[in-house]
């Protein structure tokens, strides 16, 4: 890995590239928000950023601390409510959503609720919040996460937000809108997608200096492999400049 950027910068730039111009993206705080802001300030000026508590298309001059703080609707086109945002997702008007979780499994299912016995958990996490809603209703869900065996597990201990559930057809069978589901995972090692039929997690590209073995070592289940593993492009100088100068000048997310 080049010394000219750190891994968080790499991940944010990689995530930003996925977001197309003229699309809508629901984001949380931190790295996903930075990725959306970066995309907007580079190749996707018409990317519409939405926050679950009601802020739509704000002028993000500072990183929000909460998805409902006043920065999420600073000079926004609309400051409505949570139902407004979630029903906009339900109508099929939100293209991308960024999600996170303590665990992710091979079908992209996420656990952000608890580990251990549900009624007396070893660790309690916040729960769904709006994540299950986004994962159910937005067209494509994206994940940014560090890559290790405690996160990438064979089966999540609590299925908080739906990935492809048990595989092909299960989302539709459960009643979720067709054509939706997990799309990409951006980790500190690689970018991963999903097999079109199997709906199982699949390696797509390795970050510079990362081996397939290293990804396998850090994944708690067998990954599908493409015929040829690509190399994740490095951040461009321009992307890094915008990220550092305009998106996160305080280096809250990209680190100091």
């Amino acid at each position, binding site marked *: 890995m080049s010394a000219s950027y750190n891994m968080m910068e790499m991940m944010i730039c990689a995530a930003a590239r996925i977001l197309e*111009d*003229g*699309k*809508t993206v629901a984001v949380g705080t931190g790295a996903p928000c930075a990725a959306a802001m970066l995309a907007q300030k580079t190749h996707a000026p*018409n990317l*519409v950023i939405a926050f679950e508590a009601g*802020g*739509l*298309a704000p*002028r993000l001059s500072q990183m929000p601390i909460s998805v409902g703080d006043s920065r999420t*609707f600073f*000079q*926004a*086109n*609309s*400051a*409505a409510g949570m*139902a407004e945002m979630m*029903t*906009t*997702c*339900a*109508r*099929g*008007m939100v*293209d991308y959503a960024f999600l996170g979780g303590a665990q992710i499994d091979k079908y992209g299912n996420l656990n952000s609720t608890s580990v251990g016995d549900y009624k007396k958990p070893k660790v309690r996490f916040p729960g769904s919040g709006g994540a299950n809603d986004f994962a159910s*209703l937005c*067209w494509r869900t994206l994940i940014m996460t560090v890559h290790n065996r405690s996160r990438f597990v064979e089966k999540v201990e609590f*299925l908080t937000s739906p990935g492809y*559930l*048990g595989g092909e057809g*299960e989302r539709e*069978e*459960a009643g979720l*809108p*067709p*054509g939706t589901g997990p799309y990409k995972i951006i980790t500190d090692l690689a970018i991963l997608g999903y097999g079109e039929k199997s709906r199982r997690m699949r390696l797509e590209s390795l970050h510079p200096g990362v081996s397939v073995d290293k990804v396998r070592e850090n994944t708690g289940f067998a990954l599908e492999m493409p015929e040829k593993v690509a190399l994740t492009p490095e951040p461009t100088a321009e992307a890094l400049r915008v990220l550092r100068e305009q998106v996160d000048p305080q280096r809250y997310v990209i680190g100091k």
Partner: protein
Amino acid sequence: MHMDTQENPRILDQITTETPVGLPQGEGPLFGDPDPDAARAFFMGKSRSETDKRMSAKQAVERFITDGCYLAIGGFGANRIPTVILHEILRARRRGMAFLGHTSTHDFQLLCAGHCLNRVDAAYIVGLEARGLSPNARRVVQSGEVELCEWTNHALSVRLQAAASGLSYGLLRSMLGTDTFRRSAGKVVRCPFTGKKFVALPALWPDVAVIHVHEADVFGNARIRGISVADMELARAAKRLIITAERLVPNLEIRQDPTRTAIPYYLVDAVVHAPFGSYPGNMPYEYFSDEDHLMQWLAAEKDPEIFARFLDQYIYQVADFDEYLQLCGGLGRLRELRDQECLAAD
């Protein structure tokens, strides 16, 4: 689903209290598809970009209002209605449209005058509230020219709300036990928690809606002052949305008070700058209804021949809405209506 059926076998043994067998169903026709996935497929392709959507009323009608489409009009009765677009629909000789008749008065009167409709979801039609009933609209409806399905005002707002929420149906606790229900396309269902009965109402996604507002920017972000009636739901349920606005404002003004945005731009397909666009209707805080002119309508409608000449004079032989305003007294009359509205209680 794997988790529920395999890991929790007890779930299969339980039966919810929702037992629709033998519950009443309406006999009315269902105009339009309540499938939220068909709507999602449409909305997936709808632009989310901030583009300048200004066009004339004529262009908006040509581009978005087609023969046979399902049309919905915002506002209530003769209040905050987009008359400016309704006249263009008549001039464009649109035919065979379906219509959302939720307290429609002058709008319905106009569309009946143009014989534009053949299907109507009716909550309130042919009437003009305290002004009486439209003789021509009654002739049209009584002739059987228009197929009807009965609803209530609240039912239609729930149908729009269901669509706006990405659902295929909504729930209502009125209509039960009446002929209004019997002639609707609703179905009685039971609550799985309490066993209580409600009417399930099919989601309604109009092909195109037209809403008149106080202010909009060129992208379509719009503000409404006073009652919003069912326009919040309608704007979100409609596949295409035409905004007619008393005034255009800069986007920055919208952004400086985003709480006031009633309709965000990404719902909007066309922005028509239309001062006095609701005339002869009442535009709250702007101008009162022209009761004299509305009475002329009522009088003219009594005789079909006189009415045909009236329509020629005021609509068909008129180039655009500005000319109509001029015919009706122009700026002098509009100033009077403005005073009547804005100095009301002083």
